[in-house]
């Protein structure tokens, strides 16, 4: 049970949040222009990294805001938290 620093509320227990998969996957603006393969790439393909991963989380039992988290999946250390629409932090 880790602690997540919600950018709107501050530090809260993990149990208040829900994970939403890989971050920075943008829904195509013109899906009809895409081939089956290109659409499948958006729809199904996700990374599952051991190490630094960029993820979406939502404070579902709190402010209900979505935001991004940079988490090391090997030890659950959260390296950064930033709002939707903000640029991901560059490697430190």
């Amino acid at each position, binding site marked *: 049970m880790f602690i997540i620093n919600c950018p709107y509320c501050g530090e809260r227990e993990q149990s208040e949040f829900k994970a939403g998969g890989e971050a920075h996957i943008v829904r195509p603006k013109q899906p*009809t222009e895409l081939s089956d393969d290109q*659409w499948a790439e958006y*729809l199904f393909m996700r990374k599952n990294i051991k190490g630094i991963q960029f993820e979406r989380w*939502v404070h579902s039992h709190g402010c209900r805001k*979505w935001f991004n988290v940079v988490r090391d999946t090997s*030890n*659950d250390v959260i390296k950064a938290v930033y709002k939707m629409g903000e640029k991901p932090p560059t490697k430190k």
Partner: protein
Amino acid sequence: MTKNLRIKTSKFIDETYKISFKFNGKTYFGYKGDTLASALLANDIHLVGRSFKYHRPRGIMTAGSEEPNAIVQLHNNTSRTEPNVRVTEIEIYDGLEASSQNCWPSVNFDMGGINNFLSPVLPAGFYYKTFMWPASFWEKYEYFIRKSAGLGKSPMEPDPDIYEHRYVHCDLLIIGAGISGIIAAKTAAKNGYKTLLVEEKSYLGGSTIYQNSEHFKINNQISSSWLEKEINEIKKIKNLEIKTRTSVAAFHGYNFLLARENLTDHLPLEQRNKKTRQRLLKIRAKKVITATGSLERPLIFDNNDRPGILLSSAIHKYANLFGVACGEKNILFTNNDSAYETAISLYQKGINIEAIIDNREEIDSKLIKEIEKNNIKIFKGYTIVDTSGYKRINKVSIMQLSKDGQKVVGSKTTLNCDCLGISGGWTPAVHLFTQSGGKLKFRDEDQVFIPNIYPSDQISIGSCNGEFTLDEILSVVPTTLKKFLNIKETDYENLEVQSSFNKSKRNIWLLPSDKVIGKTKSFVDYQNDATAKDIKLALREGFRSIEHVKRYTTTGMGTDQGKLGNMHALGIISETAGSKMGELGTTTFRPPYTPLTFGTIVGRNVGEYFDIFRKTPIHDWHVENKAEFENVGQWKRPWYYPQNGENMHDAVQRESKAARDSAGILDASTLGKIDIQGTDASEFLNRVYTNAWSKLAIGKCRYGLMLNEDGMVYDDGVTTRLGENHYIMTTTTGGAATVLGKLEDYLQTEWPELDVYLTSVTDHYATVSICGPNSKKIVSQIIPDLDFSDESFPHMSFKNSKIGKIKCRVMRISFTGEHSYEINVQANYGKSVWERCMEIGKEFNITPYGTETMHLLRAEKGFIIVGQDTDATMTPIDLQMDWIVSKKKYDFIGKRSLYRSDTIREDRKQLVGLITENPNEVLEEGAQIVADINKSPIEMLGHVTSSYYSPNLKKSIALGVVRGGKNMMGQKLIIPMKDKQINVTVADPVFLDKENKRLNA
């Protein structure tokens, strides 16, 4: 017959407070302060249980939570009885009843003991190989094997005790109140840290508190006296909370820990009533200090498991703390100085020591000199090769070790004894540290794993960090604390410490024997009966990974998780396989450190609180009117309302008929309701539903289907336009929360430019749905001001109105195919409005119906239920609902997926109606649908999703999904059942009123 082995008053034992208890049906006495273990030993009882596999007699081996053997069944009654209780942990109380487990018919004559003689056929992998035995053999012995298998018995009735959970927050958590923990607690608390100190035992001070030897002194005081003063001081510190009888079960990431606080297990039974028995503490600590100490290692030699063989440190503790001698003819067997501490303590109390057998050849320390001075025989460079005595040890055979320690040489000597203390050195208790994600390193000089890399703000101190001796602890711990707590000074800077302990040790993981290994039983894991031979066999059979060897031999898989023997298992593997200990790694230590009761885990979440449920504002009326309830999501919904002893079928037939013949009434309050506002609300609906919304007039309602991005049906419901920029969306009962979540996700992450606000208002309204040909008559009496004519109030429209002074929204929408209205009022008025409807509807035989009738009525009309007729593989096209998918809209969620190569396949499973050949035959929901019964294997075409007997059509109707079903109208298919085949015909899924005449009837 039995002797009294109580030797001397100990200040930890209150001899004025006598306690009687029962063990295996016989009454014994002990004193307040005794554990069941010390009380049994004082009564000269050594045979306590039987081992798991071979049913060998076993006794008390330790004095702590690492006990593998002496586990008992506690209490006799069927609700409180508890298996696998370690006698070393339970404090005795008046009325305690314990019995040996894992033995049948009794601990003294145990049928399972035959396994000991069968042991050549019960090698490692026994469990995996068992079913390869000849079947005849298995059947013959199954009865006995079943009878004698397993550890203890579980209670058969609900637990009468109370348990609870509590959250705890602190600056610093210290685990373990031995000397290191006490020093840390005082230092931290005095420096302003809000500190919690937890200790699994009932007393503070660890093993130092009963260390009464002149050989260990601090500032010229005997170490126990010095520590006692420290303890008295910390009890006065305000920001330090001390919890005894509290054992940490789990150490998770981010310094989140679970501990069990034992509140009543030590009290006489009559004092426990209405008190909380155990409390699960959920601790979030900014910093953690682990001071869990170390566990003495046994030594691995042939027959090292007999009753009367104990860890040397346990004998020491029983003598010093409990005033109990474990035997009258004691022998100690060691590879290090620890056993000499025990020897001196016994000697000082006048307890006879026959001899000390020491693996080491050249030894020299003050402790040893004192023993020699008192003419106690020490066999230097010797090892035990065998022991004897069935229910209690009576002899040991010893031989000299070769120079390299690999063999025994010379002749065998036999010594008599009734108790053998063994000491193989110490293993730091790193279990919690590794649970937290910590990485260990192997220290070669004394062959121990110690903490190396910490994953969170924590530190290990004292012997769990490999600082074993008093002088080491008092020099290292204060320095560590200063750095960890960021402070300049401690009270422990210039102590004068006297410690006579010499650290030399001769580590031999598996002691050599004069017998071949196949002929020995050298136990590594006592509880699971895993021997050195088993481990070697596993290696011979090709297992290399420690995790595999563990599972194959079951080493370390008992309730004690192999706290004693895991290191030896590793040692034997490393020696046999020629690999280095440090490179081999360890097995994973998993929570809980010691077993937790289920009561503690569930806390107050039992009975009606096991799973929370939601009630509608009309719930009490349903209860008063004897509704049977169904769980839908978290809601309790009326399922049907049986009258005069009706069964479910009869009730549903009556309710369904009444709804179509005259009037039915349903509590629809559980449907999800989302209030949608904003200038882009219409555009938003366009994007989330498959159909078009821009042109929906104010005051009109529309049915919508929502897909996932993969094109599969996700939810459905009616949405009403209340104003220019204002809608109210209804969702399925079970889908309300996830639909809101999904909509918020898209709004925040994909379309933040849309001006749309979502509010969940499910709980704010009560919804009463009235349907049937007489529904209009009823609602127009309830709301006389409203014009209910079809011209003014057509199907799929809504009006605001009032029932008396109560504001209401009335929607004319239908899920049954009947003319019907939904009245929404503020939730608190729900029950009174419902009751009013019942009263006015009386003359029309208004009939309350539940979810089952609702499902039947909609099935007659071929309306789907998302989640029943669909799973996550059905597109709207598969459901034959092409009409609701807009061709004009450029995009909506899931649109692109509707023409992926997979979703346009003609042979996808599609929703169809099914008519049985025999109109009275009702299909089973979930039954498989096939075309050709003779084909092998039979090809499965689909399954039945909804099935009812329709009282209105007077025949069986069903919906199902069938591969390519859309093009199979009129085709005959088969539903094969266990005892028959049912012939069905594929039909249109709309069974009743295809022309929708009833909507306006």
